């Protein structure tokens, strides 16, 4: 991963968006939030995020729509799908995401997945509950 930009959290639910943005910030990551695919696209083009946490069902431009535009514009960047739907893994595969987080996920799952993607570029254990305690990272 060459991108050094922020982690972009895309969710139309303002509470979860703010929470994840704050937590990731507290863990030492640079973060940004977007309420839908269109806002996200704008930020991706402007800030070149290193990772996108993407909810799928959103107004204006949904997760699929965003992924399509990204691939059309040849903007390749890792996406972690966050969804409460049962088809989380299938959806992640559909849009070529590196992994998925099924709501309701744990903090540890979130942090592990983020860390793994940033280190290796993919999330091998996405979707499974992490057994090990979360790695400590900054204050």
């Amino acid at each position, binding site marked *: 991963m060459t991108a050094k930009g922020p982690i972009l959290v895309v969710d139309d639910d303002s*509470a979860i968006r703010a929470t994840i943005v704050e937590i990731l910030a507290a863990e030492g990551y640079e973060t940004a939030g977007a309420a839908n695919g269109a806002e996200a696209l704008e930020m991706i083009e402007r800030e070149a995020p290193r990772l996108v946490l993407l909810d799928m069902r959103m107004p204006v431009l949904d997760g699929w729509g965003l992924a399509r535009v990204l691939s059309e514009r040849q903007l390749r960047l890792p996406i972690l799908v966050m969804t409460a739907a049962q088809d989380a893994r299938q959806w992640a595969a559909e849009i070529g995401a590196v992994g998925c987080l099924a709501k309701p996920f744990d903090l540890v799952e979130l942090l592990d997945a983020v860390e793994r993607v940033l280190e290796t570029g993919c999330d091998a254990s996405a979707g499974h509950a992490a057994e090990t305690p979360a790695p400590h990272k900054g204050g």
Partner: protein
Amino acid sequence: MSAEPLLSYLIWALFLVLGLITLGNAIRYPLASNIHVAVFFAIPALIILIRIAAALGLLRPGLLTNAINTSLLLALPFVLLRLVDDFVGVPGWLVWTAGLLIGGLAMTAFVFPPPRPPWFVPLAVLSFTGLQLYSAVAFTHATASTVGVTRRRLRTIALGSLLLGLAVLATALTPFAAWWRSVSEVAALGAGLSYFAGFAPPAPLRRTWQDPELRAFLRESASLPQVPEEHRALEQLERSAAAVFGSSLASIALWEQGARHLRFYRDGASYNLPPDPGTVIGHAFVYRRPILGSPEAKTIAAVLPERAAEVRAILAAPLAANGQTLGVIAIFTHRAALFANDDLRLADLIASQTAAVLENHRLLAAQARARGREEASRLKDDFLSAAAHDLMTPLTTLVVQTQHLERQLRRDPTATVGLTTIERMSGEAQRLRELIRELIDAANAERAQLVGRREPVDLAALVREIGARYHSDRHSCRVEAPESLVGNFDQQRIGQLVRCLLENAVRYSPDGGPIHLKLSQDGDTAHLAVIDSGIGISEEELPQVFERFFRGSNVNDRYFAGMGLSLFICRAIAEQHGGRMWVESKLGSGSTFHLLLPLTQVSTTHDSERPDPGG
């Protein structure tokens, strides 16, 4: 041989043939009407036979043959009267009077050889023409109230009466010009043929006459499986089946396996009939054979009590399909003479077609029910998955946030927790509670169990109070309401409804803007309009606004949008109060939600407890 006697012989031969055919028919099917027809045609045949015998020298014309000829001629209109009775009905007293009169005249003909008493000829001519005229009028009159083959038969008979009248007139005119005799003979022949075609139509003619109605029946039955309610499809089948037989009444009885009886439906009511093989309908059902007979009193009482006087004959055929007997079709008529024996085959055809329609109808209905069950199950699945989905998001926020706090406090027990964080957690917990309430309300709305005990509520006061709570700098909330507007409501639910409409107005006016609550009374109905100037609803989405899980596509933050059940619940509250809701809106220029509530007590399923009127 000249043309004139040749014509006479031809006519004689034809009348003899008609006499033989009708006699044969009467012997094969000894029904009263068949016998009457045979007697009717036997009269001219006998007169002709007497003439032939005289011509051949076998019989010497004398007083006896004269008396016989006269009596036979006099009997002709009386037999015709009996036929009128068979086909359209004649008052009993008229039959008796005519019988006595004709009998008296015939006896006179035998007792007094010519010259007969001076009153004999006028009285004979009067009774002959009177009865003939009566028959002609009766048949013509009856055509108006009949249909199909019956109408065609009665018209032909009426034509026969007309021709017979012409024949009599032409005979009377013979002294003036000889050719009237030929006219008379041709008219008599026409009358004979018309009477024959009308009274005893041969099978091919009968089928030709039944053809238009049969075609209509088949055409209609092809489209009937699509008629949603079975009883309506049956009613149409009954009507068109009756028309095929020229009857005004047919009834389809369906076998009810559980109750073990045949059930008729008529005008919204139903009548049961046990499958007794001693009855015409029971016989057709039990022995699976079409049958023609007279209805028993108990059948009439069970099926057609109000038409007892009209019904004299039943043609019943079993509705058989795939080895099962689904029921019986019964065609009723006021005169047995209107049915012919070969109608049994036609009845069988009609019954098979009816059974096929019924079977198709049932298969389609079963298919529709299965589809309905699938749809219901799919809706339930959708509901559950949508509900789970909506609960997961706030739950994730709560879980992740709590775990994050825990982690922070473990690392540093003196760490402080920001108020924003606590507020967000509390907010999410409340949101979860609201979502779960919404779910429970929606489930109750489905079961029509939302509205509880009703009591007199002042709607004006309620709207003013709630409106005041939503008034802010961002959203001015203006209430326009009468002094007081009291109706019987579930106060809590109506309050919930009004709050929900106001919350929507606030939520979908993200840039602020006035909200107007307008309450008015229209007769015994309260009308509340909640008017905002917010983002509005697109025309395509308007019809779905009150559907479950609907959320406008122009709504940006799901946090505020709830589950999309609130308007569904609102409408259920309104409807369970006997009221209704609708919305007018234009994208970008706001929405107006209308609520109509009846002020008078409207009974609903959950309104068994009457509120204290003094309350």
